[in-house]
């Protein structure tokens, strides 16, 4: 079973040289740490930055320089600032190659729910609805099951949707899956996890074809 860092490391392998990538809050943010050295990738932060760098050194925090998670950050050479209209303009016009974000639920048709639990305090969708509605390629980093051991990869989402038919790939603590027109297609098992365990943890339609290899995350 993968921990958060394992999930982040596995997702990092999906990033290609020359990609512009938007990383959501949580596990997706960690992905930045595992992009292979020498690969040219530009991170977009939807509050208005291309070319996000690592956290600042202690004492060098700049209150004017934050990411979409409101964390203090730095920039890399070649970065550019812009306003929120242009930021979501480039998102809507599909200039961002890959969007990585978290989810509470994903359905077998690619629907995603990650912003609202009815009856609980609602914090808002932020930029998530814009991102999932427009992204060319969406990878979701999520837990396969909730704390009650119920599947979060469903036939149909039970929570209010963030976007419809948009998720392309899912990386969980148990597996890597593609979202296809037929359902969740199992691609890889986490180290030490059996196909049977993944079957039991997946409520939505799961497609298993041939031998399912174990992930290579290092």
């Amino acid at each position, binding site marked *: 079973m993968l921990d958060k860092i394992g999930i982040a490391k596995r997702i990092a392998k999906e990033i290609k040289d020359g990609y512009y990538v938007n990383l959501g809050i949580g596990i997706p943010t960690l992905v930045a740490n595992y992009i292979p050295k020498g690969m040219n990738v530009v991170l977009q*932060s*939807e*509050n*208005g*930055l291309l070319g996000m760098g*690592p*956290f*600042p*050194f*202690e*004492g*060098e*925090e*700049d*209150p*004017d*320089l*934050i*990411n979409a*998670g*409101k*964390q*203090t*950050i730095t920039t890399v050479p070649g970065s550019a*600032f*812009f*306003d*929120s*209209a242009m*930021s*979501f*303009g480039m*998102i*809507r016009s*599909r200039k961002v190659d890959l969007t990585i974000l978290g989810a509470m639920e994903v359905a077998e048709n690619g*629907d995603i729910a990650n912003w609202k639990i009815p009856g609980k*305090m*609602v*914090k*808002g*969708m*932020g*930029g*998530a*609805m*814009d991102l999932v*509605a*427009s992204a060319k390629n969406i990878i979701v980093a999520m837990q396969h099951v909730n704390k009650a051991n119920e599947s979060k990869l469903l036939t149909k989402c039970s929570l*209010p*949707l*963030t*976007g*419809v038919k948009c998720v392309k790939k899912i990386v969980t603590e148990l597996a890597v899956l593609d979202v296809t027109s037929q359902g969740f297609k199992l691609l890889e098992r986490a180290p030490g996890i059996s196909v049977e365990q993944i079957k039991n943890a997946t409520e939505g339609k799961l497609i298993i074809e041939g031998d399912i290899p174990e992930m290579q995350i290092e």
Partner: protein
Amino acid sequence: MNKVVKNAEEAIKDIQDNAVLMLGGFGLCGIPENTIAALVKKGVKGLTCISNNAGVDDFGIGLMLKTKQVKKMIASYVGENAEFERQLLSGELEVELIPQGTLATRCLAAGYGMPAIFTPAGVGTEVAEGKETRKFIVDGTEKEFLMEMAFDADFAIVKAWKGDPQGNLVFRETARNFNPMMAMAGKITIAEVEELVPLGALDPDHIHTPGIYVHRIFKGEKYEKRIEQRTVRKK
């Protein structure tokens, strides 16, 4: 054309109860601190605030929530704010949550004189309820969009890094965020700046908001610039 006013109090002198305000900033970054303080001091009530966030309990728009000056909040992400939650759950505060890009683009639409825009954000979700949808062919594929209306705000209140007496504005780093669009979108736009520079001191090639969009400008007395999530690495 001198648009300089003395301070925040003078800048907001005609903001009345029940006004619709846009407030720039993302989280606590690039927010009009001085004008918010003046609004709290003035005590205008029944405000509708359009802003990406609602501040924290004791800073930003949170200060106006504490004094119950806000009737309605239009935002993309709230929370980080216990008083907000209390007012929302008790029904004292009305909240409309909209996607962040929709918020930005509805401001742009107002500033660019476009009555409505089309966006795919929220299609198939509860955000789409009651809204007109329309299909267009994009890159050879039919795709559904929501029609979203331009905002209509009485005042836009923005914070810039530098400004000149004609209202030309320059923003710094990610403190730019919603400020330029909101500056364009207000019927009356009030800009507070860290540095008020003489006419001609700003490079005309590098002005983010041309003065034609700005009605009043003043130098903020002080800036706390509070950090919401201090994340660092060791040297």
